[in-house]
């Protein structure tokens, strides 16, 4: 059944290049001589998952690339330029998501074929396709390759991981392989950079040579239906060229219930749906199974080709299988997993702490420096409190995020991540999620932003969105300052459990667990309502273990880190400046006048005493200090007065009726609004609101004291244990984090999900805080 694709009149074929192909070659060489004028040519990189496709991409582009999203879907779009080499012109390379087949169940999976056919808006149809094949597992990889060969584009095969194949005793006759497929097959070891040069040359060569692909034949009964279907589809505005139309027809005909069928029926109407049913019926009558026929034909062809090309060594238990005996075992596997996660979290908290301290201190001293060199006023406040404060709020989390990404990249690159999903699938399934949701949710305990970025490994869209929506409930490290401050002030350190723990530790533990516990029913409800659908059974390849590549790991870590700073950072920064403006303006003149007078009064009271001639040096020093202290205190009071007169405070007073059921006064309400960019800002805002000036943190004694002293207008204390608990519960459940919302927008490519997340979490937080306040009040 092996045969070259049937040559069609006017089409280039491997054996008889036609005049058109020659013309195309001539045009190309003209274009080459006018390289500067030639438009960029496009290369698409396709392949199965775990074939090292992204490493190939990085080697071809020299690690320079842009990351974005395809419009309308949640799939990452990665493009880069391959520099000209020899007579190969510069090329734009797109790294398509890893896939086993061009068949697609959902829109997100269809991106690969849409790009290859040129149907994806804003993306050029590739001029050439590079198919990355894992040399240690050629048969399964060739399934996709045979599909790609039919697209009517020049193809180059990058036979990656040749070293692994050799170690497994697999030898491949590359020339025979190349001959059977009709395209260049380039053996490479991408992570060692071997064969990359040859691959680039082969790409250039294929660009000039055009289509030489050999394709396989389907049984006549399928071919007849395909031809018929192509005709009906072209009547309804199908693909312009024959190969694309045929591939589209094939995926539509042989993928019942899939995305391509749904899309074609939506475009062509009911008559087309009926036609499809009839055509499938005829195939079934010939004794073929519509769902299985494509795989059956392709694998039969592959087996025949490989019989002459690949020699496998003796059947042996591989190293990966031996490792898997321990790591996928339901008991020992879980023990190892817990240890790895423990080390990971310990590292995130302990390694990052000094770096976070350093960044915080740096932002602080930068602020101090500006405070000294700039004259007081709106601009200085904008720079110090708005810009430096905003940038600090972003950068302080960078160390934790980089360490987390480092671990994720290592675990992913060595192949362990698939085992995590495998081990935890049965546990996560009880909450309506799959095993792949575990790492994103666990990461969210450090920070929801990398957690949400890590949901890219979840291929089921409903599972992925559910995970994204509950990830911000996990108790991230930004909540810790809020807990630490309020627990230290209001929760007594009474020993519990026979002195093993104290009440403060227990409260902290409960706060940490609260989000995760609440996330369980939320995920369950989401999967029963908004993201309803048949649960996806676990289906995942467990790739062979390999030593992680330092360069790949570091590259991924910095790449994600940069994505965090750019995406989350700009939003936090912008929102910080808005909140700064709300808290700074309108600066009423009355306040300035009042404090001007008070300052004069202080000066006036000290002036005669300082002017006294009989004053000793010591006494004079003492008076100066006292004067200075009073003036600083006035400055603080003035800041507080401005703050209380600000737009933000007016908003706080305006919402006071709404927050009263939670036991809060307007000052707490104001601080909560101000902490919209990031939760931890509440500590600093409370500092300002309670006349402490800026620069307070959760360990500040004076802030703790002020909180104790705050009263309602009738003299009752504002803060007590129920109020503190209510604030903590609110922050445990709310989504006061602009970075999280920004990353949800980016990852889902829609404002709908960040708005939904913010809304449901705020409602949840409000109800939770109210309940906590009333129950705690009733108990005490």
């Amino acid at each position, binding site marked *: 059944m092996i045969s070259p694709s049937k040559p069609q009149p006017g089409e280039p074929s491997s054996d008889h290049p036609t005049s058109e192909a020659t013309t195309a070659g001539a045009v190309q060489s003209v274009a080459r001589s006018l390289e500067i004028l030639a438009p960029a040519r496009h290369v698409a990189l396709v392949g199965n998952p775990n074939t090292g496709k992204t490493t190939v991409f990085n080697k071809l582009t020299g690690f320079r690339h842009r990351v974005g999203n395809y419009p309308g879907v949640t799939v990452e779009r990665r493009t880069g330029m391959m520099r000209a080499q020899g007579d190969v012109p510069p090329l734009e390379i797109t790294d398509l998501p890893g896939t086993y087949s061009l068949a697609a169940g959902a829109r997100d999976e269809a991106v690969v074929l849409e790009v290859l056919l040129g149907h994806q808006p804003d993306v050029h149809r590739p001029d050439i396709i590079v198919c990355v094949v894992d040399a240690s597992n050629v048969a*399964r990889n060739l399934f996709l390759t045979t599909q790609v060969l039919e697209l009517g584009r020049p193809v180059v095969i990058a036979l990656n991981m040749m070293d692994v194949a050799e170690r497994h005793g697999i030898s491949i006759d590359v020339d025979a392989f190349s001959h059977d497929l009709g395209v260049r097959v380039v053996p490479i070891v991408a992570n060692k950079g071997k064969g990359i040069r040859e691959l680039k040359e082969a790409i250039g060569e294929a660009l000039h040579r055009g289509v030489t692909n050999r394709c396989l034949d389907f049984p006549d009964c399928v071919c007849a239906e395909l031809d018929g279907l192509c005709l009906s589809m072209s009547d309804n505005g199908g693909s312009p060229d024959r190969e694309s139309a045929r591939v589209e027809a094939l995926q539509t005909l042989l993928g*019942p219930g899939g995305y391509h069928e749904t899309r074609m029926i939506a475009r062509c109407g009911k008559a087309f749906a009926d036609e499809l049913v009839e055509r499938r019926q005829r195939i079934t009558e010939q004794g073929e199974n519509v*769902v299985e026929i494509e795989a059956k034909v392709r694998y039969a062809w592959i087996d025949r080709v490989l019989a002459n090309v690949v020699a496998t060594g003796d059947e042996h238990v591989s190293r990966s299988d031996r490792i898997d005996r321990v790591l*996928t075992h339901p008991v020992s596997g879980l023990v190892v997993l817990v240890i790895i996660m423990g080390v990971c979290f310990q590292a995130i908290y302990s390694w990052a702490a000094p770096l976070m301290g350093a960044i915080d201190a740096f932002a602080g001293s930068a602020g101090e420096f500006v405070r000294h060199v700039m004259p007081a006023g709106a601009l200085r406040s904008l720079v110090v409190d708005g810009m430096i404060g905003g940038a600090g709020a972003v950068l302080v989390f960078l160390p934790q995020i980089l360490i987390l990404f480092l671990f994720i990249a290592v675990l992913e690159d060595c192949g362990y991540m698939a085992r995590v*999903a*495998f081990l935890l699938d049965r546990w996560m399934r009880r909450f309506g999620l799959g095993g792949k949701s575990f790492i994103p949710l666990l990461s969210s305990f450090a920070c929801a932003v990398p957690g949400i970025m890590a949901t890219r490994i979840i291929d089921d869209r409903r599972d992925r969105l559910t995970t994204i929506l509950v990830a911000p409930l996990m108790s991230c490290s930004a909540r810790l300052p809020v807990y630490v401050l309020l627990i230290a002030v209001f929760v007594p350190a009474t020993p519990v459990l026979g002195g093993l723990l104290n009440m403060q530790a227990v409260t902290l533990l409960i706060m940490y667990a609260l989000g995760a516990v609440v996330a369980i029913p939320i995920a369950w409800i989401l999967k029963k309502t908004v993201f309803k659908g048949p649960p996806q059974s*676990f289906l995942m390849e*467990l790739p062979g273990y390999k030593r992680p590549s330092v360069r790949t790991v570091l590259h991924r870590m910095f790449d994600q880190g940069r994505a965090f700073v750019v995406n989350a950072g700009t939003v936090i920064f912008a929102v910080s400046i808005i909140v700064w403006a709300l808290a700074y303006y309108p600066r009423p003149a009355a306040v300035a006048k009042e404090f001007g007078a008070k300052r004069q009064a202080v000066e006036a009271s000290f002036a005669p005493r300082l002017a006294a001639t009989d004053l000793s040096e010591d006494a004079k020093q003492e008076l100066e200090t006292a004067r200075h202290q009073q003036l600083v205190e006035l400055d603080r009071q003035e800041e507080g007065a401005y703050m209380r007169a600000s737009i933000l405070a007016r908003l706080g007073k305006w919402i006071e009726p709404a927050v009263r059921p939670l036991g809060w006064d307007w000052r707490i309400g104001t601080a909560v609004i101000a902490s919209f960019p990031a939760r931890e800002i509440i500590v600093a805002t409370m500092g300002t609101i309670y006349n402490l000036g800026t620069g307070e943190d959760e360990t500040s004694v004076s802030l703790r004291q002020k909180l104790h002293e705050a009263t309602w207008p009738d003299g009752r204390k504002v803060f007590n244990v129920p109020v503190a608990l209510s604030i903590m519960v609110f922050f445990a459940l709310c989504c006061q984090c602009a970075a999280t919302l920004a990353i949800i927008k980016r990852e889902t490519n829609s404002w709908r999900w960040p708005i939904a997340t913010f809304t449901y979490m705020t409602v949840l937080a409000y109800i939770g805080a109210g309940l906590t306040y009333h129950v705690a009040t009733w108990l005490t």
Partner: protein
Amino acid sequence: MMDVPSQQTSVPLSALRAGDTALVVGIAAEQMAAKRLADLGFVPGVRIKLIRRGAPCIVRIEGTRIGLGTRLQESIHTVPA
């Protein structure tokens, strides 16, 4: 079912023991799941080996290890060989 053994003697993949090898004789899953399995190589006549039992289990097919959830395991009919 062409030249593969009849389905009467077949057992679902979930009924195999760890270490057993078997031939796939048919897949009885919902269309899209069946297509996904087929494209990964689960077609009648292919030889597989069950590496680890359980939910999910691990199956070796065409030189790769694939993890399969309960419903997919039950939908794959095999004849021990």
